[in-house]
């Protein structure tokens, strides 16, 4: 996905860009509103992450301006202020959601997904491998004429495999993608989700292979 990050704090912006790139997203950074306007004029984004306090103006004004221009790109506001005082105003001005700093990136991703899903497929995010189509927004796997609904963790696991078919993913890596830091889970927990996914992929010509001692990978049936 392509993000635009409007954030004036250089350090935080650099960190967010690096972090989102790790998950395979493309991300442009605008340190102020003027740069942000230029970016929007030149490229189309799937989502805008907007800070509120910016050197050349209030992010809320920018939000209003975007909505007046009928820009449909969803906006998630990054707020560092007290949630109690700020949130209502922002949602009234047309933000699609907000997230309070500091945030968990899996939560940010979940919110982006929810916002895009609500927007109704303007930006379809589909990946396919050997005729099996993964729709991240709808949370479905299409196997020929069959459609399987995926639960959130199954979906996220699927996304990891579909992003790089054939590549081996270690158990710790998969766990990072699936569980939050506050969850105490053993490595065996990953087997449960791999097992569920295998069941849903049955008869599709695609399967998840266990590579002993290394991890799992997505492969096609011979």
């Amino acid at each position, binding site marked *: 996905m392509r993000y635009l990050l409007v954030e004036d*704090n250089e*350090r*935080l912006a650099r*960190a*967010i860009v*690096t*972090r989102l790139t*790790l998950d395979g997203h493309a991300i442009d950074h605008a340190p102020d509103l003027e740069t942000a306007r230029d970016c929007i004029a030149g490229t189309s984004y799937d989502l805008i992450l907007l800070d509120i*306090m910016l050197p050349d103006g209030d992010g809320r004004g920018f939000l209003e301006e975007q909505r007046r221009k009928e820009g449909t790109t969803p906006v998630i506001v*990054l707020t*560092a*202020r*007290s*949630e*109690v*005082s*700020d*949130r*209502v105003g922002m949602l009234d001005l047309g933000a699609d*959601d907000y997230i*309070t*700093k*500091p*945030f*968990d*990136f*899996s*939560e940010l991703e*979940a*919110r982006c*997904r*929810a916002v895009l899903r609500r927007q109704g497929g303007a930006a379809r995010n589909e990946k396919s491998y050997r005729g099996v189509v993964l729709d991240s927004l709808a949370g479905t796997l299409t196997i020929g004429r069959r459609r399987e609904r995926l*639960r*959130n*963790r199954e979906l996220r696991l699927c996304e990891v495999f579909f992003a790089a078919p054939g590549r081996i993913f270690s158990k*710790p890596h998969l766990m*990072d993608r699936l569980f*939050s*830091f*506050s*969850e*105490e889970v053993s490595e065996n927990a990953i087997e449960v989700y791999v097992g569920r996914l295998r069941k849903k992929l049955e008869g599709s010509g695609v399967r998840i292979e266990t590579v002993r001692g290394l991890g799992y990978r997505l492969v096609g049936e011979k």
Partner: protein
Amino acid sequence: MSTVAASGSIRRRLTLQLAAIAVLLSVAFFLIVRGVAEQAAGQTQDQILAASATSIADALRSEKGQVQLELPYSALSMLGSVSEDRVFYRVAIAGRTLTGYDDLPLPALPEATGEPVFATFDYRGEPVRSVTLSRNVSIGERPVEAVISVAQTRLFLGAIRARTSTIAAAVGLAFFAVAVSLSLWAAHSALRPLERLALSVTRRGPKDLRPLRAETPAELVPLVAALNNFMERLRASLARSEDFIAEAAHRVRTPLATLRTQAEIAYRRVERPENRAALKEMILAIDESSRSAGQLLDHAMVTFRTDHLETEQLDLGELACDTRNRLEPTAELKDIGLELELPDAPALFEGDPILLENALRNIVDNAIKYSPPDSLVRIALHICGGDYVIGVCDEGRGFGTGDLRRMTRRFSRGTNVEDIVGSGLGLTIADEVARAHGGRLELARNKGGKGACVSLVLPRP
């Protein structure tokens, strides 16, 4: 609302002072009227006495070397015409009584000037007023001094005094009554601008800190000016504290966000399990501190707002729905379903939407936090008698074995939650919001045995 101890009442003091003045004036009036009436009556008697003595003196004649007197009738009848008072007289020629009462005392006359001398004394057991004058009568070639004294009792004067006293007292009392009621009215009307001012301050909304612009009498201008000045300072101080809370949050949270993001990046890049474990601990610590900072600030805002409740009509169903939508992505991460059950009709309630949303979000957030993956959190809005009950039930670990009432206390957490990040303020905030709206927070163990139920109970309008 604090009460102010009243130290006396201006109305009462003003009324009492005006009434005291009225009493003094009434008494003075009474005394003056009685004095003037008495004096007038006394003067009248004196004049008649003098006229009577003069006419007796005029009737003295000298005949054959003797002083002769034919008492003129009119001399005594003029005295009788005024009242029933008894009259005494004495005419003495060269110290020898010619006629009249021998024992009627004659005051010493200065010189034979013909000027009458008045005196008051007791005679025959009664107070009398007497006039004495002398006249030289010539007997042959020799002038002889004739002294004429006429005295009259003072019953008439007493009667006049009694009558004028009664009238003066009646008029004085009437004056007093009128003056007291006038002073009551005066006190009331003098204080009316003050009451109007008090009313216009009380009628204001809790957030209305605009200066007072009502018409103000000159005497109240300093008070109103001081009040306006005070409100201005209060407004500035409130704005400052709001700004401070926002600024503090900004300052604390932005670096924490950088720290957390970098820690996550590092976590993804390092391979060695011990390094990963250390980074994970670090991220958890960051989460804990940011959550505490956030909730402390939220708590400060909630406390601030509960003191200045800004209510509006809202639909609790809509509120529950918004909260559910807001937290759905968070729940989804753990494959937790958020189930919402609402009544058909809107649940209208008069309350502060920001506070109520915050309370409900804290409750649902808690439920998600303590729920295992692949479970269900139920949010249900019911009408229970006179109350709205928004119940949030989870299938988590429940509240443990501790005292449920302790849970809403600040920084107090359950006995079984050491492994989960939390500040112990979530339910405190919810509880304070409920109380500020005349409701309460109820905690219960889920009936099915597992999990917890937290209910926000709000009175129906």
